[in-house]
């Protein structure tokens, strides 16, 4: 009777010993790693998710785009103020008919693996990789050939003029031909371990833990002032905020609700200028039984108090939208649209308009209830929707809030049109024709991230096509003005606020000059920033 009991105890003891050995062992490695930092200039930036690739030519989430902007170079740099400066191309010239773009490349540039960067690489990118990219696909459709004139000159021959050609070229990162040629592009290992020409070189990736980059000693754009950059993956927004305020990390994206703390803390600063402007928008389903009438849509839009949304839901960051395009795109903004004049929050007038449209208040004081969709993770948008609820209630419109994951939002809003109103944060992008116009033009294919209203307006489509078909900016401005004027009449998509509060925040205790403007969005000023002490 005693033998089996002894066996149990023995088994337990073996288990215990084994487990202790395991913990002791893992504990030991940490002790060894602690002293590694001495003298090295390390920049630490927390990232919000485990990247599924670092090549933004293929996947465009915030994290891959940020990494590509440090490791890879485009031919043309485009700043958040829409200013173009030479990148890998020293100069460029577009022929008068808008069909031939000659690119003269920088000489003496090498890839991170030491191979020279040449015109062959550029031609390969435009023929093979650019057509896979979200916006590059439009160049791909119009590309007749990419002609290699000599080692440092490439001419892109187009079949028709393309309005946002230079802006789209500026949005394309160059990847090496010798790594990608003949491989399956979407599963190439270099998508996770990119080889580029940029200031930072890919060093390591550890799933769920971190990505590290190292300085490129041969960077063509000057000497990099950082030895290593570490990007710990911190999925929890509160944890990122605490680490940032404590100075454990130099940069992190924090929740908009933390921005009051950011402005109170003298060491932290929101990088409001680090990328193209973003906006919080409202989208209407014009096929909804309540929202078929443009007058009702206009009344709903007017009922949303844009100033109050900025002040409260967006923590005072950003500006209430007064038109469809941001002011940074001066050449494209319509002078005829003024939201404060066209859609004032005049409750009596809104009530009257809704009565006139045939939606009188019922016995409970409500006219109808709208199904409102938004993405839960976008906390700024969720806060906006909460405010919209009370604003609409005031004019007798109830809303049912349906916050979901991004995937469900995409399916319900774009594919299935199962919504009345949808709220979203999106980006203006490199050019109105690629970043903004897709929200207005006909989308009968029900593609994601494009006009979900179900409306196809011939006037808007004509204006959009015109803006795309010419490369003369003044002509494009005229076409885009027509588009905005018509959008104000139809009212099925509109910005509520220009809002850059989702951009990263920095802690300036360890590094100076992190907020220096760079010639390209999303890239850190690696060659000019300096470490304290």
């Amino acid at each position, binding site marked *: 009777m005693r033998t089996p009991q002894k066996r149990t105890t023995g088994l337990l003891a073996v288990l215990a010993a084994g487990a202790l050995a395991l*913990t002791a062992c893992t504990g030991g490695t940490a002790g060894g790693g602690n002293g590694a930092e001495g003298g090295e200039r390390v920049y630490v930036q927390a990232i919000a998710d485990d990247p599924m690739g670092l090549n933004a030519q293929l996947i465009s989430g915030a994290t891959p785009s940020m990494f590509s902007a440090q490791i890879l170079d485009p031919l043309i740099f485009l700043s958040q103020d829409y200013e173009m400066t030479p990148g890998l191309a020293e100069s460029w010239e577009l022929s008068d008919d808008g069909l031939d773009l000659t690119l003269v490349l920088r000489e003496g540039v090498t890839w991170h693996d030491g191979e020279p960067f040449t015109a062959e690489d550029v031609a390969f990118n435009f023929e093979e990789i650019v057509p896979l990219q979200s916006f590059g696909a439009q160049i791909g459709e119009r590309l007749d050939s990419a002609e290699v004139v000599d080692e440092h000159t490439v001419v892109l021959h187009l079949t028709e003029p393309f309005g946002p050609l230079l802006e789209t070229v500026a949005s394309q990162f160059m990847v090496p031909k010798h790594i990608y040629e003949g491989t399956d592009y979407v599963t190439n290992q270099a998508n996770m371990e990119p080889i580029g020409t940029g200031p930072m070189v890919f060093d390591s990736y*550890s799933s769920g833990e*971190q990505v590290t980059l190292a300085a490129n000693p041969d960077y063509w754009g000057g000497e990099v002032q950082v030895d290593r950059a570490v990007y710990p993956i911190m999925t929890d927004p509160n944890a990122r905020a605490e680490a940032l305020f404590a100075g454990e990390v130099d940069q992190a994206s924090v929740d908009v609700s933390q921005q009051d703390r950011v402005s109170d803390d003298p060491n932290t600063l929101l990088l409001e200028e680090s990328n193209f402007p973003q906006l919080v928008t409202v989208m209407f389903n014009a096929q909804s039984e309540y929202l078929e009438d443009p007058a009702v849509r206009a009344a709903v839009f007017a009922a949303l108090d844009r100033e109050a949304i900025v002040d409260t839901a967006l923590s005072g960051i950003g500006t209430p939208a007064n038109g469809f395009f941001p002011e940074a795109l001066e050449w494209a903004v319509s002078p005829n649209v003024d939201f404060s004049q066209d859609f004032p929050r005049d409750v009596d007038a809104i009530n009257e308009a809704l009565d006139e449209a045939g939606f009188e208040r019922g016995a409970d004081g409500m006219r109808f209830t709208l199904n409102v969709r938004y993405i839960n993770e976008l906390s700024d948008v969720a806060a906006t929707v909460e405010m919209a609820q009370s604003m609409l209630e005031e004019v007798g419109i109830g809303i049912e809030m349906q916050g979901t994951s991004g995937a469900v939002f995409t399916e319900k809003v774009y594919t299935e049109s199962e919504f009345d109103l949808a709220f979203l944060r999106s980006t203006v992008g490199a050019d109105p024709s690629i970043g903004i116009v897709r929200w207005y033009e006909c989308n009968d294919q029900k593609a994601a991230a494009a006009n979900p209203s179900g409306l196809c307006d011939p006037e808007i489509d004509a204006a959009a096509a015109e803006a795309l078909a010419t490369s003369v900016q003044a002509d494009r401005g005229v076409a885009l003005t027509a588009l905005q004027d018509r959008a104000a009449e139809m009212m099925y998509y509109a910005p509520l606020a220009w809002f850059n509060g989702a951009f990263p925040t920095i802690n300036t205790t360890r590094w100076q000059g992190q907020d220096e403007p760079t010639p390209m969005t999303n890239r850190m000023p690696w060659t000019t920033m300096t470490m304290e002490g």
Partner: protein
Amino acid sequence: MKARLIHYGRLLLSSLILFIAVITVLFFLLELAPGDPIQTLVGDVPLSEAFRAQITAAYGLDKPVWERYVLYLGNVFTGNLGFSFGTNNEPVLDLILSRAGNTLALAVPAFLISTIGGIILGSIAARTRRRWLDGGISGGAVALFSVPNFWFGMLLIMVFSIWLGWFPTQGKSPYGQPGIGLEYLVLPVITMATSELAYKTRIMRSSMIESLGQDFVDTARSKGLSSSHVLWRHALPNALLPMVTVSGYSLGYILAGSVLVERVFGWPGMGLLFIDAINRQNNMVILGVVIVLTVVIILVNILTDVVYGLVDPRLRAQFSPQRTLPPEGRQDRQSDEVAA
């Protein structure tokens, strides 16, 4: 001996059926889930048709779902769990194995602390004549067992990391350094161990009370043995039997519970991998993690059964040629646990 073989044969067969059922149900559920994984991968921007075509071909998504299911099932039995859906094409098994060590670093200490602690606390509570001590242990156990572990974890972070500053809030080592720091291990292990410790204490207490009331304990006492000798050498081994079963399940609970605990502490283990995969609709990784957990839980259950058969003399007697009744009730309960 033959009866025992038949018993284990049945156990293996039912485990295999369960395993295939888990894969099948989950595979088709994931197929039905809303959303387009390719769009989710690319982000909130228009998807170029050329890219969709390439990635569809690269991952064989153009094949009908039945064909993919059969292929997948075949692959699983050869140890191939497919590839993570991304632009890096990483084998799912490699991905999971690279994270499994981190999860074990939490789960094994949590398992040991809760088991050993539960045995000691439960025995003390059962034996003590001090009412307040028994009441304190039993009451505390009920309270801690009722607390959701993710909430408890957040509470620990608030008190010990933010207010007192004793332990780091997140991660498993200082940024940019490999390995696991011991100070990073403390809070998540406590979080994981707590509810299991509470549960095991309760089981151990009642089992010990039962054991202390049995005739052989009286016999031992009447032989003049000291009361601690009676408790630890005579009553304890008997009271430990239910703990073998409970510990087997508890390892499964701890591993499955790691999903929440890892999320709270930003601990890069399998649980965090699982949550990331759900957010990205990375279906092969979701399936892979569930398969690995299922296999571990099934193996632990089989092992528990074997160990139980070895240590419980009554069961050995059942399997002797005279009596061939398999312990039906217990087997059913095990299947329920795995399914849950």
